[in-house]
């Protein structure tokens, strides 16, 4: 069936079976491979995107439910002039990624948290940031979120 929705501000129409997860439509039909496949059961968050602004694990949402809605992926976070989102910049400043595979999802989760919350506390970061990172970048993820919201220095966390 044809399903029309918006991705990163552009209208798209895809031909897909109704139960196809949004993740695979993004990756295979729309060539937006920044959104990653990690587990397929909404357990790891590598596939996180925003749907009408709400943080969504795209591996577990059928594309039919997305009809008429607005999806933002990691590729859509930059400004129109190519400027990085402040969270992306904070991720670079704090040198967060190692393998980097989970980081699209981590960034989407952090952006959603900050948009909802403004200046999240440590406890709110604990609660909201449930995506898995096997490389163990969690301390720098925390540093980057705090830096992006002006709660802490943006410098790389070196020796403390």
């Amino acid at each position, binding site marked *: 069936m044809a399903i029309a929705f918006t991705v990163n501000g552009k209208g798209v129409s895809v031909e897909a079976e109704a139960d196809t997860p949004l993740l695979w439509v993004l990756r295979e039909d729309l060539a937006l491979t920044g959104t990653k496949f990690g587990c397929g059961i909404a357990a790891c968050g590598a596939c996180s995107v925003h749907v009408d602004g709400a943080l969504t694990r795209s591996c577990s949402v059928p594309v039919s439910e997305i009809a008429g809605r607005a999806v933002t992926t990691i590729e859509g976070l930059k400004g129109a002039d190519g400027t990085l989102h402040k969270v992306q910049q904070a991720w670079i400043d704090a040198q967060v*990624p190692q*393998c*980097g*595979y*989970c980081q699209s999802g981590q960034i989407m989760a952090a952006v959603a948290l900050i948009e909802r919350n403004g200046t999240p506390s440590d406890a709110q970061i604990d609660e909201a940031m449930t*995506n898995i990172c096997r*490389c163990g970048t*969690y*301390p720098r993820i925390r540093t980057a979120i705090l830096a992006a919201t002006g709660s802490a220095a943006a410098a790389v966390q*070196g020796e403390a």
Partner: protein
Amino acid sequence: MADNPNPDIEETEAAAAPIAPVKKKGVKRRIFLVGSALLVGGGAFGLYWADSSARARAKALTTAEGEHNFLTWMKIAEDDTVTVFSPHIDMGQGTHTALGLMLADELDAAWDKVKVEQAPSDVAFSNTALVQSFLGEMSGYPGVINALPVAVIGMLTRSQKIQITGGSSAVRFTGQGGMRVVGAAVRLALIEEAASRLGVPAGELTTADSVVTHAASGRSLRYGELAAGAAERSLTRDPVLKSRKDYKLIGKPVTRLDIPAKVDGSAVYGIDFTLPDMRVATIAAAPVRGGKLESVDEAPALAMPGVEKVVTLDDAVIVVAKGYWQALKGLNALSPKFTDGGHGAMSTAAIYAAQDKLREAGKPDGEAGAGDVDAALMAAGDKTITADFRVPFLHHAMMEPFALTAHFKDGKLHLWGGLQDPIGARDRAAAAAGLEMDDVIFNPMIMGGGFGRRFPGVTEIIDQVTVLAMQVPYPVKLIWSREEEVRHGTYRAQSSARLSATLGDDGRIAAWRTDYVQGDNSESEAGFIYQVPATSRRHFGYTSNQIDGPWRSVNSTQIGFYNESFIDELADAAGEDPYQFRRKHLPEGSRHQKVLDAVAERSGWGAPLPEGAGRGIAIVESFGTIVAEVIEATVKDDGSPKVLKAWAVVDCGTTVNPINAEAQIAGGMIMGLSSAIGEAITLEKGAVVESNFNDYNLLKLVDAPPMIDVHFIESDAAMGGIGEPGVPPASAALANALFAATGKRIRALPLLTQAKA
């Protein structure tokens, strides 16, 4: 042409030609046992003074008009751009940036003009040529040679087919022995070329920021202008390297080159690769490792939309479709019947029982140590302190599930994906396809984690996608579901051990025995750092139906847990502080003692703690690096552990890029904590019980220490690894902290199982 100081390696141009006959098949799979990821990694120097035909081959593969290749490892373009070819793959550990800056430092190149590219998966960039040509001349690296068993040297010298990333080897071996030497030698050639062009003595020239300058006359030449002439010159093979005080890049914080593409979604991993007309496939292998496919009715899958083909292998069924979801649904529509290969009785409990039985039979496969442990333990009688430990299989859980794309076209097999040994991957694919290795092209891509899982010797997806691609006219990407990934791992071994010791009247350890049961004889890890008069390490070889694979830090994870848990018990038995007890068994003034002292000082060892909290310490040397860690932890209401604070002190000799080194140690520590707290692969009826991240419990941010204090002690010791050594001390430091908090010893992992029990 300048005088050639080493006529035996005179550079001559030769026609590009294969540098070694490539044997077809018959080459044994390189399965990484006996911690050989470390040992083979020890040979991972790559090619640096290869024969001239190899250099010609590398040049042909890497250089375009206006570019000049030096010694295969690097090229300089006439616009001054320096490109460094890394034979190691970056799987998140920051290798590319580190290798680039090591070469650039010696070259005196401007860092903003340096690029690092993945070396082609070609024998001209294999790890082995150096072993062939330099074996007798590696006096600067006696530790490396000593760490290489004869069998491994033999394997390296026989085979051109290794290009490994593993064993925390890239920076300390390829970087130290290769990149720095090449950078320094090329810098000298650039100076010689400039001296000739300017008509001044080379001694009057200086280099900085990719420019050679003659201060007296105020003239200078850019590296790009000198490259063509310098590339024709003989290169000295033993240039003097910079001393620490002259480093411009090494040891300074440098931001990683790969990170910008990892925050905007533009980095392309193996699973992201796509080709026109490509199909996507997914697979289900026999649930019991060793089992075979008995039968499958293909019709239900073929009736599903988008499904194009079902391919059966000896032990698996593959569904090919237009997209992954269609392939997965097709696969789920099938009811394949598999045999259990005779392993139906295998279970976690059965493995521990078999291991106990084997150990109790008392016939070790290997023994090492010094002094008369038997006599000491006998004399101690019931004063002998004994503890039994056990640890489960661990899954690598790289975040990017396995995915390889293959296309067989015009007699050549092309592969795209991320593996820890691209040349080994070609070798394995060639064998599976029945092709010559020269007809297999592997295109390495960045990896979403590796941790030891992506060595071709243990990577059956290479065979699977190859057999599939040979049957279809289109390119095909085979993706493993996470369930396939979790259930068909090459896990860190399930292992158990009995440790026994006695204390002398002086309160010191008089004798120590470690009896451990697992596949690998890990003598190199089992030997510990403490001074004990009588020691014995006995290996009892046991393997189940699983393949024990290298898992980040290999056998040091479990051996580190055994040793550092047990010495804590001995400290307690001696009535001593765990830090001081360790300290007095370490050589006075040693690097180990300094590391231990530093972590105690930084963590405020001995200071009062909040009610219910405890502090634990552990120190492990692995991959040439000494790491001591302290954990403060408590127990939550539900009985699960909560890590409050964490410290690590590291002596790896020289730190190349502190920003990245800190991340590697902290990340390693978190991986160690994750495994200690929640991770276990268990078997029932021969098959893996866990299926995905809902039941394979990885640590999340909420349970990770909010901050890890990582401190480096710089020393002039040989450079150690950084990717792996952060892992091993973590589990014992946590277990020891929980003992301090609760008085209850933890001798089996993971802790969550203990909490529930």
